């Protein structure tokens, strides 16, 4: 069963704390993505990873960094979280066929106080 997982599902942090969001997929997809979703702003692309240690900035990378050391695992890191990083974060993965059709994880709801 093709699946993208995310941990944790809910997270509350204080401003200035570090945050680690984790994503896994069992489909051996080369490409993985991190998005954030805010009301009225749609899905905003933070980072793309084309494979292990091959990452590129998306549209809103400021304040975020990523790590991909295994094809099936992609992490999003917030160093010193800010209140405006409160959002729902989605991870997705895709393969190169079928126009890069994406499969999404269930999301992580992050609150930064």
């Amino acid at each position: 069963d093709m699946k993208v997982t995310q941990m944790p599902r809910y997270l509350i942090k204080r401003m200035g704390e570090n945050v680690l969001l984790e994503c896994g997929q069992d489909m051996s997809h080369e490409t993985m993505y991190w998005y954030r979703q805010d009301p009225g702003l749609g899905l905003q692309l933070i980072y793309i990873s084309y494979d292990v240690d091959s990452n590129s900035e998306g549209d809103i990378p400021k304040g975020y960094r990523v790590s991909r050391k295994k094809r099936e695992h992609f992490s999003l890191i917030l160093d010193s979280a800010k209140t405006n990083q409160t959002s729902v974060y989605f991870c997705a993965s895709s393969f190169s066929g079928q126009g890069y059709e994406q499969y999404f994880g269930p999301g992580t709801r992050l609150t930064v106080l």
Partner: protein
Amino acid sequence: GDSVTQTEGLVTLTEGLPVMLNCTYQSTYSPFLFWYVQHLNEAPKLLLKSFTDNKRPEHQGFHATLHKSSSSFHLQKSSAQLSDSALYYCALSLITGNTGKLIFGLGTTLQVQP
């Protein structure tokens, strides 16, 4: 540059009436379009996608036709159901060499009322 436009932020209609959600795009190359649906507190999931052989994709009563002449991929359904209430995203595949991503529209919230 390549882009996707969904003109309606919110569409409200009565159960049983037809649905049409607009999607237009600008694409440098031959387009590959998707519709994703996101129910409340869930992840976006693929609803349907365009085909290259001019077949009309259909899923769960929804269909969409890719019209290259008008750069559109509108989502339609003949009769709305309460369970269709959700956020709908239109997306365009952007492929550069051997890498790719989807460009999403801002989304249209569909509210179906009894």
